[in-house]
C-alpha cells in the first residue's frame, strides 16, 4: 500500500477546485492512496467544512470563478495553522508562487500536473510512507 499505515487513523484531505474534472480525478487517487478525502467545487462550502473539521492537508486551486484562492489559503491558515496547504494553479508565475509561500503554502503545483507528483507532494507533507 502506498498511503499511511492501516493501523493509524486516516489522514484527512480537502480538495477545492471549481473545475469538477480536477476533483473527480484527485478524489479517487487520494482515496486509493489511503487518505480520507472531501472534494469541493464551491469555496463557501469548502470554507464551512474547514471551520467545522480539521484537515491534515488542503489542496486548492488559486484562480477560481468568483473566488480568490489566495484568500482561501489565508483563511485556512488562520482557522487551522497546522493544516498544510498545497496550491495548484494553471496560472503559475513566480510572483504568485512567492505569495503563496509567504501566506504559508507548503507547495505550489502548476497545472497540468501528474497524479503521481501531487501524491508525492502530499506524502511529503503528511509524512506518509514515501513510496512503493
Amino acid at each position, binding site marked *: 500500500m502506498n498511503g499511511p499505515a492501516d493501523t493509524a487513523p486516516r489522514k484527512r484531505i480537502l480538495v477545492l477546485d471549481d473545475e469538477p*474534472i480536477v476533483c473527480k480525478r484527485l478524489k479517487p*487517487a487520494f482515496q486509493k492512496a489511503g487518505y480520507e478525502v472531501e472534494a469541493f467545487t464551491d469555496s463557501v462550502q469548502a470554507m464551512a467544512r474547514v471551520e467545522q473539521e480539521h484537515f491534515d492537508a488542503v489542496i486548492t486551486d488559486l484562480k477560481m470563478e468568483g473566488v480568490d484562492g489566495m484568500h482561501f489559503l489565508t483563511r485556512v491558515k488562520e482557522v487551522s495553522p497546522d493544516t498544510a496547504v498545497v496550491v495548484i494553479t*494553471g496560472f503559475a508565475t513566480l510572483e504568485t508562487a512567492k505569495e503563496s509561500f509567504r501566506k504559508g503554502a507548503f507547495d505550489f503545483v502548476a*497545472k*497540468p*500536473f*501528474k*497524479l503521481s507528483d501531487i501524491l508525492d507532494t502530499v506524502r511529503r507533507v503528511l509524512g506518509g510512507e514515501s513510496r512503493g
Partner: protein
Amino acid sequence: MASAPWRAKHTAAESGPDSARSLFHNFRRILEQNTAALEIMADMERAQGGEYVFDQTFLEKSAHELGRLVQRTVHCLNGLSANSHLDLYDRFQEVRDRIETILSGGGAEATGPFLSFDRAGWDAEALVGARCALLAELGQRFGLPVADGFALTPAGVKAFLEGFDLDEALAAELRRLFRRVGRQRPVAVFASPAGERDPGAEILVSEPTVEHVRAALRQTLDAWPGQGEAPAVGLRETQEASVRGLVRTLAPESGTLAVAASVPERPGEEEQYLVRRVAPFTPVRSHILAKPVDRVLPDGLKSLGGTPDGAYRGSALLPPAWLARLAGAAMAAERILGRPQEIAWSFSARGRLRLESLRPLDPPGDRGLEISGDPSLVLARGGETAQSGAAAGQVVHVAEAGTGEDFPEGAVAVARAALPRLSGVLRRAAALVTETGTAAGHLATVAREFRVPALFGLRGALELLRSGETVTVDATGRTIYAGVLEGLLSARTPGLDLDPSDPEYLLLRRMLRHILPLRLTDPSSPGFRADNCRTYHDILHFAHEQAMAELAHIQDRRPGLHAAHARRLVGSSMDIRILDTGGGLDPAAGSEVRKDQVRCEPLRAFLSGLDAPGAWSSEPAELSLRDVLGGLGQADPLAMDPSAAGNLAIVSDLSLNLSLRLGYHFSVVDAHLSDAPGQNTVYFRFVGGLAEEIRRQRRARLIRIILEGLGFLVESKGDLVFGRLKAASREDLDLVLERLGALTAFSRQMDTAMTEDADVQRLGLAFLQLGDTGGGGAA
C-alpha cells in the same frame, strides 16, 4: 490593407547587413516559436495520455497561446520571404476557427445523412458516434485491419425518423463502401452513441440491399432505449469468417494476450491461446481441441497437411502466423487507445484479418510506483523521453534512407537521427530509439500520436544495441535492458488513469485533431504546399521548411548582398568574404579579418574542417576536355556567372549562411545554433560542377552517402543534393559543420578519385570513418 504590392521585389536597400540581419532575426523567431509551440503541443498530448490532471482553463490557455505562436510564425515566414506565403494566413485562420468552435462547445458541422469511415475520425465523433469514430480512426489514420463502413449521422437519423426518402443516398453509400472493400459483402448495423455508452447488439444483414439495410437501420433505432436523442447508426462490412473470436490484450491472471477462437459452424467449441505481448508474439499456453484428422481447418489445410517449411500444420484453429498478426494488431490498438482492449476479430479463409469491434477493459490494478529493472541487464541509459512507456522486441537498425514501409511489425527501431521520414516506422515499431533528436521535434510528436515508446538523443545507441538482439526499452525510465523484462512491461502498461468519457478528454481529443497530426512530412513531394496544411503542426512544419529553403537561397535571390559591406577573410585556404549582421566578428576586425577574429560559431567550426591539415590535395583537379564539354550548358548557371563569383558568408554569433563557389562546384551551408536543440538546424546544398554525366552522378551519390552518414535527411535531383539536419545539440552540429568544411575541401578532388562506381561507396565510408573519432559511425 496596404496598397503596396505583396510580392515586392528585393531592392538595393534590402541588400545590406540590415536586410540580412532581419532575415536571420525572422528565421530565429520562427525557430523559437516552433519550439515553444511544439512544447505546448507536447503538454497537451501528455494531458491526453491520462496521467496528468488538467482542466478546461488549461485547454483554453494552451489553444490561445498555440494560436498566437502559429500566427506569428506565419507572419515571420512572410517577412522572410517577401510575402510569398500569404495563403498560409488563410489556412491558419481556418484551423484556429475550428479549434475555437470546439472550445465553445460547437463543432458538429452540418453534414449530409451519411459519413463514410474514410472521411471520419475522432474529430467527427459528434457526427458518427464513438464506435464509428473509433473504427474510422484506427483503420484510416493508423492503418489497422479494421472493418470499413459508414454512419448515419444525427442529421440522417432525424431525416430517416421523419420519413424522408434516403434510399438513393443509402444505395450510393453502399456502392462506395463495396468499392473500397473490393466487393459486396454482408454488413452489420449497430447503434453508435457518443461517449462510452453501450451500443448494444449488432444486426447482421447478409444480403445488403437497400431494403434490407433500411430495415436494419429502422430496427436499430426502434430498439434504442429511453427518451433521449437517438444515436448515430453505424454500418460496417463483415466478412465470411473461417474463424472468429475475441482477444483481450491483457489477461490479468497471466499477463499475456488471451485469444479465444472458434469456427462459425461450431461456435461452442472454443480454443484458447495465451500469447506474449511482445513481438514475435509467441504463444505461452494454448488449449486446442481434438479434431478428426480429415477436418478442413480455417486456412483450408488439414492438421496433417504440410506447410511451406515442411512441417505438419497441426490442429490448432489459428496457425501461428495468423495468431501473430492478430496479436500485433491487437497490441497496436491497445497502444493507440491507451488502455487494454477486448476486440472481436475474424479471419477469412484467405487470411484476411478484420478487427470488428473494440471495448476498453478495466486498466490493470495497482502496480506500485517504484519501477526498476535489473541493473546488470542495462545496455544503455540516457536520452530524452519523447513518448513514455515500455516495450520489448528485436532491435532493427533503420537505414537513414528507409521510410519504414518494410519495417518488421513489433520490432525495436534504432536510428541515428529522429527524422520526419521515420513516421512510417512508427506505424509498425514497438519502440523507437535514436542517437540524435529531441522531444520537441516533429518525430517526437508523431511518436506520441502513435503512442510508441520513444527515446531520442541516446548517444551510441546504434553501437550499444546490436541488430537482432532482443531488448526492453523503458522510455519512461530512459533505460534499455537486455532481454524481455515482463515485470517492467506490465508495470508500464498504459491506462491507469485514463477516463475517456470525461468531457475534458473528449474536448482535448477533438482539439488535438486540428493541432497534432502532421500530414505534410515530405518537403520534396508535390503536395507539400500551404493549401494542404490542415493542422497547426502542418503549418509549423511547412513554415520551418520554407524558411530554411528561403535562407538557403538568399544569396541567389539577393545577389547584391556582398557588394558593399563584406570583409575579406585572410589566412584560410579559401577566399571568403564575410558580411556580419551582429556578433559574428571581433569588433576590432578591419576590412581584412583573420580566422581568430571570427566569432561566428558555425563558421569557426566549418573553417576548422576546411583548413584542417591534409584536407587539401595540392594536386590540381584533373579535368578532361570531355568533362568540360560535358559540363557546359548543364552546370548551375550561378556557378558559371562571373558576377556571382566569390564566396560569401553572412554571419552572426550563432548563425551562418555561406555560399561557396569552389571551382565548378557550388554549395550552400546554412546553420543556426542555440542551446535549445529543437531550434538548431543545418542545411547543406551542393550543386553540379563541370564534369561528364557519369562523374556528376557519382559525385551526387557520394555526397548523399556522406550527408546521410552525418545524420542529414537528404534529397537529390540530378546533381543537386541537399540535406537538412534539425533538432540536434549544439555540440553535435559543431562537429557536423567541421565535417562539412572537410567535405568542401574533399569535394574538389573527388571527381577524379572516382573512376568507377565502386569508388563511391568506398570513398564515402572512408570520409565518414575519418571523422568517426568524434562523430560516431553511420547507420
